[in-house]
């Protein structure tokens, strides 16, 4: 039980965010209206994705340092879960953009950056597929994963800020502090970030265990 408390926490938080997100008070803003509730789901997914990718890069670094294949399993699965979160973030964003900006995929620098970021990590999946030898695959994809994260960060945080974007916090604004979020929304949002990240860790943990069992069976 001691080891599993965070899974219960993840479930509790997600339930809380769904309930509080759907019935909690929100400010009345033009254009956004009730769709501002998507902040609780869309934005935490992206935050979660970035945290998961950072973890994957760290585990890739640990693999390179120690050569322990288990770190490689963890890094791959964190990347896979991050890709899943990325797809979900795109979908929730599309729904939201359809109602507020008029089309599901407006030509916005942040969207395009994210699309390239996804390509970057899909290339990682392809790279892994093109090796037969396990050690070689693990080492080379770890090298690429770290490199990809170093490219991903300027792609997401710097490039969109240099032009005008539909997203808040871009077009020269340093951060998203001026988000039109009221003070009642802020705690739910931050708790949501923690909840979705924990959910991602949980998914990853299950997949890693599957990989470990497979590896043990093959031996």
């Amino acid at each position, binding site marked *: 039980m001691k080891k599993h408390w965070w899974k219960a926490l993840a479930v509790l938080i997600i339930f809380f965010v769904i309930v509080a997100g759907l019935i909690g008070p929100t400010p009345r803003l033009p254009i956004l209206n009730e769709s501002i509730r998507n902040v609780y789901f869309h934005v935490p997914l992206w935050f979660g994705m970035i945290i998961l990718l950072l973890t994957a890069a760290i585990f890739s670094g640990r693999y390179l340092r120690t050569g322990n294949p288990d770190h490689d399993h963890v890094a791959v699965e964190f990347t896979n879960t991050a890709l899943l979160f990325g797809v979900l973030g795109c979908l929730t964003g599309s729904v939201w953009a359809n109602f507020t900006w008029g089309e599901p995929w407006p030509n916005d620098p942040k969207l395009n950056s994210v699309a390239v970021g996804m390509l970057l990590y899909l290339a990682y999946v392809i790279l892994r597929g093109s090796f037969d030898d396990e050690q070689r695959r693990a080492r*080379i994809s770890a090298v690429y994963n770290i*490199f990809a994260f170093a490219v991903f960060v*300027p792609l997401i945080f710097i490039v969109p800020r240099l032009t005008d974007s539909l997203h808040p916090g871009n077009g020269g604004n340093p951060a998203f502090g001026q988000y039109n979020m009221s003070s009642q929304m802020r705690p739910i949002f931050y708790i949501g970030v923690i909840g979705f990240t924990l959910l991602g860790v949980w998914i990853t943990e299950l997949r890693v265990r599957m990989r470990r069992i497979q590896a043990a069976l093959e031996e």
Partner: protein
Amino acid sequence: MSQSLRQVGALMRKEFVLEWRQRYALNGMLLYIVGAVFVCYLSFNARKGQLTPIVWNTLFWIILLFTAINAVAKSFVQERAGRLLYYYTVASPVQIIVSKILYNTVLMLVLSLLGFVTYAFVMGNPVQDLGLYIVSLLLGSVGFAASLTLIAGIAAKAENSATLMAVLSFPVVLPLLLLLLRVSKNALDGLDRSLSVDEIVTIAAIDAIVLVLSGLLFPFLWRS
């Protein structure tokens, strides 16, 4: 320190000599960029100065991108495994990657300047701030060489390395390419240089990050 610098120098000299001995590869690259420029010129069938500056600029950088990928891709494929093993016994991997990046930078500089001259010759030259444009070419050469050399090292280890090289390198160089497009567009329009400082600093920072990471990661790559 001075000894390792001398070793890097020797490795670079080896790259140059190697390239010079099998000149067909170098000539091939030179012909590649001139040919690409000429194909674009004929396809657009434009008289001088008819393309809008945005199209002019974007087309040039796309030609440069493809040339860079082709030129850098061969930096590891070219050499036989046995010879690579020999280098690894006489020099440290950091020296090898540094010399390869430096060599590729020089190669990219030559290619991009030649490309620019040919391109401006056949398509007309609307660039108003030539100095800044050259700076963007310089930064682009360093950035392309630094990021693509490591990718070439990765792709060379896999079986279908040509496809993999393209798949891996497009997203990796894209942030760099977008910033370069913006700076060179500013140079093209002759905007005040102070407007481009932000972008230039960002490009230099990305170049630096990529260079340092290549140096850090390459030792793990060659061991396999």
